[in-house]
């Protein structure tokens, strides 16, 4: 069975239709999804800005990461759960949306960027933990992260306008 067929089937399950037509539950999920952006991207951005040496330069990077990353993770989980529900409410519509695909690609790269950071430069954090401005390789991670987060927000917002541009 192709993915398209699968999503077609998924969209015809009774819960999907109910969620799609429920209006208030749907809008509530959408609201949580949009507003949790401030937690997920907000705390991630503060970590990235620290990696760039643009905020909290007197605080060791490791402290910023250990204290703020759990909040970013929590926000991320809420985003994924509510995002999955929004997808479930209209699987074919999302799947065929260009901006949705772009958003998922950017999201994957953003997660990969964090994983690479953890596996590489972060392992030698003792060398640069207290530097007001971390080394260039670390700053690159911060810039890449900010760009990807901005792309995720942009693609997410543009999903509603697919018909305008590709209709």
């Amino acid at each position, binding site marked *: 069975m192709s993915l398209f067929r699968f999503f077609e089937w998924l969209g015809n399950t009774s819960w999907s239709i109910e969620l799609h037509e429920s209006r208030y539950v749907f809008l509530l999920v959408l609201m949580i999804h949009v507003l949790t952006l401030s937690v997920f991207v*907000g*705390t991630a951005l503060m970590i990235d800005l620290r990696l760039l040496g643009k905020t*909290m330069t007197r605080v060791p990077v490791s402290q910023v990461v250990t*204290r703020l990353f759990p*909040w970013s993770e929590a926000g991320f989980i809420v985003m994924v759960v509510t995002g999955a529900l929004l997808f479930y409410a209209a699987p074919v519509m999302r799947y065929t949306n260009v901006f949705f695909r772009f958003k998922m690609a950017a999201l994957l790269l953003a997660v990969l960027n964090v994983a690479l950071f953890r596996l590489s430069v972060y392992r030698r954090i003792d060398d640069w933990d207290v530097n007001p401005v971390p080394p260039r390789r670390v700053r690159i991670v911060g810039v890449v992260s900010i760009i990807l987060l901005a792309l995720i927000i942009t693609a997410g917002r543009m999903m509603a306008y697919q018909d305008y541009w590709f209709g």
Partner: protein
Amino acid sequence: MRDSPVFFPIVATIHLMGLAIIGGAVLVVDLRLLGFGLQHQPAAAIAEDAERWLLRGLAVMVSTGILLFMCFATKYYYLTFFWVKMAALVAVIIFTWSIHRRVAMAQDADARPLRRRLVALVSLLLWTIVAIGGRYIGFP
């Protein structure tokens, strides 16, 4: 502007990026005051650093917000949620640069934990009302 399929979505996107900046700047301070943030650091230092980004986030939010308002001014003027949002926004700005600032900038040794938590909760509550109001304005 409202008829442009490009202008409104792009400005709305930048408006959302402003939400992320404000979210981050507010959370680092309020989580610290609540006891869930950078507890090894003096609250005043965190608040001082975050204030710069809060101002930048506000600059982005207000400028794009005015442009969004201009797209649908008459519609928004008659929306209750628009006025709820504006009232909460004015309230949170006054609160942030008066009581909140004084409490956050106080020496940790003199700080009263309960008052700090209460101030952080009021701040988060007011910002949440601003955000929910904003979301409701956009609903069909």
